[in-house]
């Protein structure tokens, strides 16, 4: 039998007590950390309650309108009544000459705006990237248009390009007259000219956004790769298209998608302000046409069908873009 003296006993007791305290502390700390990690709320109802406002907004302003648009597209509507019409709206849509024209204009516009924006931004970004003096001044100048709301951008160019009084049109006319050409430049009556003017405005407005991303992507490319290219004697254009573009491709894919959405949807204010879809439907892109049909002609069912078709078109476009570019994009 082991006999412990008083001192030893006290020591043992202390050790046991200490151990107990440590254990309790440890348990308490784990509980705390577990709580903060996943159990903020004591019951699920509280969590659901706090989620409710967000859910309400999303459902009210996103899902419900989307579902109702789908529903409406099968109804013939007037201001006050609606009547189930089956696929009438869709049949009307695809047999309508003005809708086909709008489709054609939209794809043309999308192609010009996305292509133009990408190419121009690429050149400007490359120049910005290569210049070593006053870089930030150039950068700010290039990005500036992006700071304007589309409506303001539209207005500014509307003034600059006003056929009779605009400064730009005046200069273009003056240059034309040097070569003995009498340029009318009245794009309010010429469809193709209006298309060009709207496209220029839309591209100009979107340049800044693209340049920010492209310059950032170029700056991400290691300097030594550029130096290796210099030593290899690669020409500037080859350097841009064979080295920079492939290395920037993830950014470019992203920009193509963003620019497509921009061209199909966000150019609405520019069209509305500058041409109102005219002259003769030359700039009547789908998003503008469906707005007119919905809120000026109050044909909500017809507009809903258009809206759904537009959604599908952009969705399919997106899918194709991502699939195609995925094959070529270099993700490091």
């Amino acid at each position, binding site marked *: 039998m082991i006999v412990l003296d008083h001192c030893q006993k006290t020591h043992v007791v202390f050790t046991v007590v200490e151990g107990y305290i440590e254990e309790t502390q440890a348990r308490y700390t784990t509980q705390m950390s577990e709580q903060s990690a996943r159990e903020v709320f004591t019951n699920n109802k509280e969590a659901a309650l706090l989620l409710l406002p967000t859910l309400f907004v999303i459902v009210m302003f996103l899902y419900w309108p989307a579902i109702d648009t789908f529903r409406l597209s099968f109804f013939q509507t007037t201001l006050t009544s609606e009547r189930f019409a089956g696929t009438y709206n869709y049949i009307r849509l695809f047999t309508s000459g003005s809708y086909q024209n709008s489709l054609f204009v939209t794809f043309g516009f999308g192609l010009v705006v996305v292509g133009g924006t990408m190419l121009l931004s690429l050149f400007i970004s490359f120049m910005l990237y290569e210049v070593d003096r006053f870089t930030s001044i150039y950068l700010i100048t290039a990005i500036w248009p992006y700071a304007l709301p589309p409506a303001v951008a539209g207005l500014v160019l509307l003034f600059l390009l006003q056929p009779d009084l605009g400064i730009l049109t005046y200069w273009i006319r003056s240059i034309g007259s040097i070569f003995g050409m009498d340029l009318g430049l009245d794009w309010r009556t010429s469809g193709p000219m209006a298309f060009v003017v709207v496209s220029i405005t839309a591209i100009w407005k979107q340049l800044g956004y693209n340049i920010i991303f492209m310059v950032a992507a170029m700056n991400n490319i*290691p300097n030594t790769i550029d*130096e*290796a290219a210099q*030593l290899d004697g690669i*020409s500037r254009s080859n350097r841009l298209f064979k080295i920079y573009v*492939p290395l920037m491709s993830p950014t470019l894919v992203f920009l193509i998608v963003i620019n497509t959405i921009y061209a199909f949807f966000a150019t609405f204010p520019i069209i509305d302000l500058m041409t109102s879809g005219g002259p003769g439907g030359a700039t009547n892109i789908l998003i503008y046409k469906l707005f007119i049909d919905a809120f000026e002609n109050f044909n909500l069912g017809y507009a809903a069908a258009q809206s759904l078709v537009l959604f599908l078109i952009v969705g399919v476009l997106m899918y194709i873009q991502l699939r195609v570019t995925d094959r070529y994009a270099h993700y490091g």
Partner: protein
Amino acid sequence: MARIQLENITKRFDDVVAVKDLNLEVDDGEFIVVVGPSGCGKSTTLRMISGLESVSEGTIRIGGVDVTGQEPSDRGIAMVFQNYALYPHMSAKRNMTFGMKSAGSFTDEEIEERAMSAAEILDITDLLGRKPGALSGGERQRVALGRAICRDPQVFLMDEPLSNLDAKLRVQMRAELAKLHDELGTTTVYVTHDQTEAMTLGDRVVVLDGGQLQQVDSPQRLYDFPENRFVAEFIGDPAMNMIAVDVADGIASHPAFSIPLPDGDSLSVGSAVLGIRPEDLYLADEREATSPETFEATVSVTEPLGDSLLLHGQIEGHEFKIQAQPRRTITPGDTVELGYDPDRLHLFDRDTGEAIYHSDPTASIAPSGVTQ
């Protein structure tokens, strides 16, 4: 293959002088290593030769031609970077041939032939289809070397090409680089901060500090006859011990010891700095015949290095490093008796740091102006 001549090269970045009045000639086919601490201007010098950096003053000639204002691609050079600088979206082979294809002055067969022969030299024929992302560090550096070889340049420029590799691979690649240079015989300028690389690779080694040339010499002469304190302390690991002494009548005296300088009878320079490498000091009981003088030191730190035992000893408040025989039981606090190799003493001017004296008996080939 070509000579490189740098004549009075200066490089300024705004107020900072990165390289100051540098004169250097690299012989045809020579492997020259530029070494120095960070910020000494070695990379800037290399980049000026390549044309990636402009020259503030001076002239650069490659093969007798003034290339100072020429584009990098017109200088007949190829460069290998520390981080390889491979095009990540191209296969190894395309990386090697892209420059030649863009130049447009080569036929497809010629390009193919050169790429294949470079790949064979470097033993990377199996890797040609892979992109850099699928290659290991060593393989990437081989591809980067392949790209340089493909160009068949007059001059290879290498900017710390082995620094990103792990220690073992670095030693292996170092040997391969030496072999490659023997095979190709191309003039090579190699920049590194690693003095082992410098000593093992270079036909001659250039030591730079603060943008100024310190010494150009063969590795062994650099080690044996450093022209100044900087070179003496920079080359060699662990670094040379330096201790202030008074020199009169060929004797270097210090409160703790006085060392006669062999063949230095006439030397009376007053205050100077005595340099002795750690491996030229030994424990007196390790050898039968010891130096004329021995002195005592107190051991403060012991570092067993495996092949030797590095001792940090205190002599009158000065720290000395001593490379002793391994497997000795010496503990900090012990007092040891030190001997030295009388043929391996160096004296430096206390103010300018210039070498005054080397005691090596073969110092008849010592740099001019230095007394034996």
